[in-house]
């Protein structure tokens, strides 16, 4: 595990014992309880960690100064975990002359990793409407 960076599989993705929905415990009667906003956040992060990261790891571009690039996408997720439209580029930082050839590719592969990862494993009971997520993609 990398120091200084948290691992949602160890901490953030821990099932919420009082909540409901995917990854949550249920009460003895089986009656659904309601997740808190923090628990929902954890659930979303866990889904991203489990599904987007491996996809990006398989297709991330390589090149000189690739570790400088950070691509931020806005992803909108429906309550059933499907994408609500195409992921949108928010910003890209760390551009250098050497990584210019990979800048567009970095965006393309980030978008592809989200598309391949969707639909995310979320419970429709977790929230209503569209959840907006900003993802910062980086290769180190």
């Amino acid at each position, binding site marked *: 595990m*990398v120091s200084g960076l948290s691992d949602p599989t160890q901490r953030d993705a821990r099932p919420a014992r009082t909540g409901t929905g995917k990854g949550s415990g249920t009460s003895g009667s089986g*009656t659904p309880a309601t997740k808190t906003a923090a628990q929902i956040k954890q659930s979303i992060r866990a889904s991203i960690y489990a599904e987007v990261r491996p996809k990006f790891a398989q297709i991330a571009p390589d090149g*000189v100064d690739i570790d400088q690039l950070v691509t931020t996408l806005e992803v909108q997720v429906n309550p059933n975990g499907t994408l609500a439209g195409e992921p949108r580029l928010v910003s890209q930082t760390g551009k250098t*002359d050497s990584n210019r050839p990979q*800048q567009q590719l970095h965006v393309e592969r980030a978008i*592809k990793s989200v598309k391949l990862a969707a639909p995310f494993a979320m419970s429709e009971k977790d929230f209503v*409407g569209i959840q907006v997520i900003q993802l*910062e993609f980086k290769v180190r």
Partner: protein
Amino acid sequence: MISFATRPIAFLLSGLILAVPLAAQTPPPAQPPAATGAPVREQVIVDRRQDETLVAIPPLATPQATDTPAGNTAALGQQVAAIVANDLDGTGGFKPLGPSGLRTISMAEVTAPAFGEWAGKGAENLIHGFVRANPDNTLTVGCYLYDVSLKSELVRQGYVVGYRDWRRAAHRCADAIYARLSGESPFFDSRIAYIAESGPKDNRVKRLAIMDSDGANHSFITNGQSIVLTPRFSPDYKSILYLSYLGKRPRIFIYDIASKKQRLVTESANQTFSPRWSPDGKSILYSMAVGGNTDIYRISASGGTPQQLTNGPGIETGGSFSPDGSRIVFESDRSGSQQVYVMNADGSNQQRISFGAGQHATPEWSPRGDLIAFTRIGGGQFRIGVMSPSGGGERMLTSSWQDEAPTWSPNGRVIQFFRTAQGSGKTGVWQVDVTGAKERRIQTKGDGSDPAWGNLLP
């Protein structure tokens, strides 16, 4: 290794209330939050890939198997696929699957691939294409690249070539695919000049030779009666600059490829070496030792009086122009050991840029301008490395007993050099990608040294 760092977020709950049926004895669950408000923000950080992208490339289709002077189009479909696979394999980023062991696709599949079949083989990308004989004695080579998981087309190109140039069509196809998948500029459709060596260690025969970037279409330019060194293609590919010791007297020649005639640029009783073109092909840099002092000179490609650019007490040599021709990188031992310096094209503003361990020699400016390749001497090794034009970011790319004389691929992302084996003294031409991840040896006729890459073919 991965990380998933978190950031402070503001997660807002809406006031939306959903109608929830009430159950006796059971407290009503609170409503799920709506998704309005500040977005969740997370980092998806991954390590650099250590594996290679699996690219399937079955033999290309042909609408009708036709005999041509280049071969039957069905056989050409296999051969073109093999050339593309070999080109991609040498870059370090791709692992070709096929064409051997794969079925030949039908013409219908060229534009409608069986994605499920290729996904089942683990292919991330898929190359399809066709070879067609045309009534006007040409060939059309179709070249398609697909994303297997997204089932989308990434490249669609067609090349109409004469029979003689069918290999170039394959290289162009590989270039298009490489450029699309890596983001880099193409470089396969190019040629290499080098010195072919043969004979015993103390009596080597050195001949100037040229070949395609993959070693095909090889031919010798000189017959070995004189020693030739350090060839360089002109920027327009029409000629080759090289140094020749005829009768132990150094001469700089330009060989015209079309007419097969050579022209003397300059000769001297003094030791002369390392001729290099300017980016516009109008002038030539070289080094010359006069009275025990070696300096860098510039001369018009048509000859004339050279202009002395350095005037230091040490040995200055190995000049190489920046891509815009405004600066020159060279090596000098004025500090007491060989180090890399840069100066303006007129010789002014000379500054040392290498300060790492060991000596730094034979600098070559990348055609992209962002890096300088060099040979580092130290610890009993000659190694190939790169640094920025300001001298920062020094990285070593090879680690062998004796690697030297780096030159750049046309896209500035692969470095070619020659490696001398310890003991036998045998030399070979090698390539390493600019990340240092992948090395490969280029096949030459006998031993090979002093490789130089030409630009992308026009």
